[in-house]
């Protein structure tokens, strides 16, 4: 009984200690978005303590952070403040100091106020490397004049959306976003204006967590169907706007949508006009998700 109480105490202590400043899920929780297993959402303490390689090198992180901060002439922190900040940084466990400096240096180089740059650094110190990569890569691509050349506010906001605030596998959304922007701005593909493209890409990557390994391949296939099949008669914008509507229902939805359209428009087994074919396809796309209780079904498709 006493052992159980101790275990509960340790678990709660660990949870408190690891709680980041920003109310976000832990890296493990987010990265396990697709994992449905008995251990998901919990922490196996015995496993954590027995696996030495995963235990936190807290002193090493503290030391790296402290020595790095002491060398930063811009911050010019005294030893006490430096130690306090290093302690906060080291809470992010292994790699936290490195993550802090990567995010902090990037913001500093951009011209962000030092206090804010420290704040951003702390955000990522307590997250994982993938999320930091998302932030750095997305921000760099969106902000640099030689790449997408967005304004600071947009680049900053989107970078956080796709990293710190993203509920899903970081790598997937990073790759999806970059590939989608490349796709929709490319002259041979959609050739959309940058802002419009980025906005659409953001709408689409909202659904990345539903697609294990990312949605780009499904997107490309689905978009090609929408644009290549003359029976669809959809413009570039219409096609791109349709994507998130269908992808909202998971990886099976585009497949169901496409099959329904082909069946409705290409076979003689059902006589249906284009509008109703679209309605049917969308409805079937919506039904791609497993039922989650009683749902109010729409009225029957119009003939």
């Amino acid at each position, binding site marked *: 009984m006493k052992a159980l109480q101790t275990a509960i105490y340790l678990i709660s202590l660990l949870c408190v200690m690891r709680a980041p400043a920003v109310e976000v899920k832990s890296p493990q929780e987010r990265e396990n978005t697709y994992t449905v297993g008995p251990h998901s959402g919990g922490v196996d303490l015995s496993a954590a303590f027995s696996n030495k390689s995963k235990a936190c090198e807290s002193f090493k992180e503290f030391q790296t952070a402290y020595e790095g901060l002491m060398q930063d002439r811009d911050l010019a922190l005294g030893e006490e403040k430096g130690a306090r900040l290093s302690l906060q940084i080291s809470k992010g466990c292994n790699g936290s100091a490195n993550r802090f400096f990567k995010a902090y240096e990037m913001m500093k*180089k*951009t011209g962000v*106020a030092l206090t*804010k740059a420290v704040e951003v650094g702390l955000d990522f110190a307590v997250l994982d490397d993938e999320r930091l990569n998302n932030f*750095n890569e997305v921000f760099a691509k969106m902000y*640099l004049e030689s790449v997408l050349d*967005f304004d600071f506010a947009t680049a900053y906001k989107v970078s956080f959306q796709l990293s710190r605030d993203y509920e899903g596998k970081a790598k997937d959304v990073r790759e999806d976003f970059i590939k989608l922007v490349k796709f929709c701005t490319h002259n041979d593909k959609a050739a959309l*204006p*940058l*802002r419009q493209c980025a906005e659409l890409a953001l709408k689409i990557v909202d659904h990345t967590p539903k697609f294990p390994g990312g949605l780009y391949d499904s997107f490309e296939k689905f978009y090609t169907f929408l644009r290549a099949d003359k029976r669809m008669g959809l413009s570039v914008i219409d096609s791109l706007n349709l994507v998130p509507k269908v992808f909202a229902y998971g990886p099976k939805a585009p497949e169901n949508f496409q099959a329904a359209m082909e069946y409705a428009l290409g076979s003689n087994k059902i006589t249906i006009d284009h509008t109703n074919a679209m309605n049917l396809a969308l409805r079937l796309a919506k039904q791609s998700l497993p039922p989650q209780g009683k749902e109010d079904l729409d009225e029957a498709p119009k003939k």
Partner: protein
Amino acid sequence: MKLLRSSVLFPLLLAWAAMAEEKAPVPAPAPAPTAHHLAVESEKVPVELEWERIAGAKFYETEFQNYEGKTLAVFKSPNNVFKFKFKVGRYKVRSRVADDRKVYGEWSVLTEFTVQPKPAKLPEKAVATKGVIDPKTLTGEVMWHWGEAPGATQFRVKVTDQNGQSVCEELIKGFAYKTHLKAGTYTATLTSVGADGIESEPVTLPGQAVIETVQLEKPVFAFEEVPDVTDPKLKTHRLPQTKGVPTLRWKATSTVADTVGTLEYRYFFGDEWIPVDKFTSKNAKEVILDKAMKPGRYRITAWAESAGLKKSEATTYEFVVKPTSY
């Protein structure tokens, strides 16, 4: 006779009759030089000469001589006041009186006497000006005008500023004087000048010339057009670059004013603008903002200024400097 002769006094009052007339000048809103003419040297001007009254004297005589002693004219009067016309010049005069038998006494001693040209007739408002300076020359045009003056072959105009300092003085053969003056308040005095450079008493021309300074036009920055990154069909503008450094150029460069300004820096999420640099165009057509290299937000505030002119309103422009890589 001796008594009479000895009683003949020197002229006490040499007054211009016209002076009284000038108390009610005729309004003359604009100069009309063609209506006036300058005096020729032979022109005679009204003279009033008053001797001291002599008891018992019934007849008075005044003799005008030139400096060689030649008698030029003798005027008679039943009293001690003589009114006549005579040429502008320097003379010697003497007088004598007679009793009711017309028996004259001795001449008085010769006294120097100057016949002056008369002051000009003055309009009600003698000055005309737009009241503001021309930004290109920093001066405003002012024109004074006046009427003719008997005996005056030319006029001396003296302009003084609000501090009583003389700013210009000129001899004018005409009835108007045009000049260009800096911002300020000015008055002019006019002296009629006749033969031999003999001058009248100066009179102040009515009205003040008030010239105000003007505000310079605010500088307009020149931008270069670049495709809008958010939509290539649209154009956006930015500061021109000199080897990658933002450069400030003006659409129209002023010949009289310098463009002066400040460059400030602000961090993203920063609370305040931090002064980075001050610049002045002097004669340059552009200012290379080499202090705007550090990534972040910048603000340029620039205005035109020049001595004697009100500085312009400020033009501001904000821009962002991005890193070239991460």
